[in-house]
């Protein structure tokens, strides 16, 4: 393996006449935490959607662990080991916390439908195993006390953690987090930072995250890509990014005002 869990080669996304993303080439080293930042509408979620198979890029190629996944369907990409969370939390609103997480185990279910309906051992054993693994996961993210609550009754911060737990349950090697710290105050953001670092180590993940909270990004990302109007403005480590004049002009200026107001 090339040491790159994720590599995109000049991917672009066009909607009708609008170019949401232009010639983006990303490299995410295995085991690292990489940030994707930029003003609203810069195309960041579109990049996620291309990587996870929701959209097929209009041009360019995407490689996951050196395997070309361009244009593959989303469920297949997840089966290969890529998981994500969503900007607007998308929990399954009829299900409890545990049930939400158990869904992710379906993709790796070894038994077939017939065995499930009849109740044959291969299915029952797999289900038992899934249950244990999911409760274990909930314990690791400190949600096990609410395992039986409807997911949507949780406070916002816990809902985000649940979404991350659900993504982790698919046994991914690459985790894409879309604004995990959205709506959090500074204390919660710091907690989240520790959380992400911890799960990266514990689950041996590579993480790519979109985020607006600069303390989180600068605090935890080893490499940062800056996007504006779908075009890469800059890439580098936090120090380089913070001092890049183009980035400051397009984006960080606004962020400083935010920081001053908090």
């Amino acid at each position, binding site marked *: 393996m090339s040491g790159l869990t994720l590599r995109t080669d000049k991917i672009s996304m066009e909607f009708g006449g609008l170019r949401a993303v232009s010639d983006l080439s990303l490299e995410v080293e295995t085991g690292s935490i990489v940030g994707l930042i930029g003003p609203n509408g810069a195309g960041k979620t579109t990049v996620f959607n291309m990587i*996870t198979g*929701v959209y097929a890029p209009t041009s360019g190629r995407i490689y996951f662990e050196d395997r070309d996944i361009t244009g593959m*369907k*989303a*469920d*297949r990409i*997840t*089966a290969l080991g890529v*998981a*994500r969370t*969503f900007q607007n939390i*998308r*929990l*399954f*609103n*009829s*299900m*409890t916390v*545990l*049930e939400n997480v*158990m*869904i*992710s*185990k*379906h*993709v*790796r*279910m070894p038994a077939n*439908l017939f065995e*499930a*309906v*009849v*109740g044959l051992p291969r*299915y*029952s054993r797999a*289900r*038992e195993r*899934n*249950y244990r693994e999911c409760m274990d996961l909930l314990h690791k993210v400190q949600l096990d006390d609410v*395992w*039986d609550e409807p997911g949507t009754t949780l406070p916002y911060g816990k809902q985000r953690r649940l979404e991350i737990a*659900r*993504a982790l349950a*698919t046994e991914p090697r690459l985790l894409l987090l879309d604004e995990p710290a959205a709506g959090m105050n500074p204390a919660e953001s710091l907690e989240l930072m520790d959380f992400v670092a911890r799960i990266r180590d514990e689950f041996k993940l590579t993480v790519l995250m979109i985020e607006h909270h600069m303390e989180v990004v600068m605090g935890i990302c080893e490499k940062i890509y800056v996007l504006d109007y779908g075009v890469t403005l800059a890439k580098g480590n936090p120090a380089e990014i913070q001092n890049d004049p183009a980035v400051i002009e397009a984006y960080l200026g606004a962020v400083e005002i935010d920081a001053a107001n908090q």
Partner: protein
Amino acid sequence: MDKRRKSKNILTIVVLLASCALLYLADNYLSTFQIRILNLAAIYAILALSMNLVLGFTGMFSLGHSGFMCVGAYTAAILTMSPASKELIYYMKPIIPALANIEWPIFPAIIAAGLLSALFGILVGIPALRLRDDYLAIATLGFAEIIRIVVTNTVSITNGSLGLKNIPSNNNIWVYWGCAILTLIVLKRLINSSWGYAFRAIRDNEIAAEAMGISLFKHKLISFTIGAFFAGVAGALMGFLITSVDPTMFRFLFTFQILLIVVLGGMGSLTGTVISSLVITIMMEVLRVVEQPISILGLNIPGLSGMRMVIFSILLLLVILYYRQGLMGTREFNWDWLLDRFKISRSGERGEAA
């Protein structure tokens, strides 16, 4: 196995035995007419359960149910009618030779009906399931109509608009309710299995479901096909109950009645559906009164035919506008409520694992 699980299994067996007892009593003490109504309710229950699987649990608004029923009914009828009947009934155009001499017993015919309907389910589903909500509704409606029109026009197979009569009759309550209970058990196990949860995930949030690795198309097709299978079974049973089928039985009106039952009982509750099937079927009979002329105090009040459907339409509207979750919402009757009362421990309990 923990205590609660054991208790649940015992209670479920008790209920099954009690149902058998009820059926036995009904068989021996109710009139033939009343048994027919109950059997009709069983058929509606199977239909509504299969529609609920597709609509309530997987979130697909399919209006094609009557088409699959039609396939099932005709399949079972053609397979079980005696060659003599076929000669008699197909008087405009004789039935094609391949089918002329077939005469099967009813249970293989029911299975065959279900399987052929399931095949049609796959054929319809492959194109139709790529469409979203409203388009899916119209497309499946269209397919059901196409099926019906084809049936009306392929006279040498189906006898066209003349329909089929002399289908072997069966009014045995065990047959109909046996099938209904079997359907309920199968669907309950399906819904509580990993696949059932996958269906629900698709209903709740398709995009998130796909992101968690669930193939939308494959799972929608599975749900749709199983729904079609049971609709076919119900169609077959319909033929045996009424002993005649014709294309006009399978118009959209039929699908509407099933839709009403599903909405009333709760889209997403199997128990609600069964209860609602009984209620609606019985109501439909009782309300026949409204459509007959009655004589009060020497005044002759003419019957208002069509009034039943007016009442049902209003009922549907009231439920969907003001009480959308129907009778049971997404709740099922389960034993937890009862066992909680008796303080039987919940250790080792899990969500709703099968």
